[in-house]
């Protein structure tokens, strides 16, 4: 029930921010549609730890997002340099990297790998992720495990 209340508040906040027109009719429609969506979510039984991951630490998640943005920036510059370089200095490779994480954290990890230019997660198993990388350095960087440790930290 707590999850239903949180989902309702988040949806209502989104409605208020996006609509920008605060008349009784539109506010009423907003409340009605948010309640309708929560009712559908309850009926479909998707309001679990996966649908609304409230067990992740919010402050740490924001900190992780900032760190990830910086990593994305650095690897974008690296890939950009490789693309414009006349000799095209790439060394593509495919390897498994370990990912012994919960479901939500595994998705965050796989998505972070894909979001970072130069590495793409191809296949996600229960305890490892198959990664294609544009360079050998990209795979070595993932195997060094800093991103993995930070994602694992989100769940604790």
């Amino acid at each position, binding site marked *: 029930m707590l999850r239903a209340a949180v989902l309702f508040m988040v949806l209502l906040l989104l409605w208020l921010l996006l609509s920008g027109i605060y008349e009784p009719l539109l506010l009423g429609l907003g409340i009605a549609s948010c309640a309708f969506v929560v009712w559908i979510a309850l009926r479909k039984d998707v309001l679990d730890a996966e649908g609304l991951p409230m067990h992740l630490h919010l402050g740490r998640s924001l900190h992780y997002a900032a760190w990830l943005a910086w990593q994305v920036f650095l690897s*974008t510059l690296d890939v950009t340099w490789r693309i414009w370089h006349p000799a*095209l200095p790439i060394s593509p*490779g495919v390897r498994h990297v370990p990912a012994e994480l919960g479901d939500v954290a595994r998705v965050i990890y*796989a998505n972070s790998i894909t*979001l970072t*230019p130069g590495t793409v997660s191809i296949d996600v198993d229960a305890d490892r992720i198959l990664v*294609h990388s544009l360079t050998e350095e990209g795979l070595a960087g993932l195997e060094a495990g800093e991103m993995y440790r930070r994602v694992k930290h989100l769940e604790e």
Partner: protein
Amino acid sequence: METFINGASWCLLLGGSFFVVTGGVGLLRLPDFFTRLHATSIPDTLGATMIISGLMLQAGWSQPSLKLLLIMVFMLFTGPTASHALAKSSLHGHLKPLLRVTKEIEP
């Protein structure tokens, strides 16, 4: 102050455009499907972020800015999912990735 904001906005828009063009060049230059997938993630991440930030500076503290911010967040969530779906389906379609090539690639 307005000149400064406009200048910052232009820099972000031009920089973002450069990264979008880089994605296109990468798509042409890189040798196979999987490596080309890496080129497309540049416009998806830094390109889109810089262009949307530049537009947000033009819009100022207003509701359109907030909507632009939400567009950016949704792109950052859905982009990798689409890339992953492409990579996974091509691997399951038995497309073999090209491995360990450095200098001998045709330009």
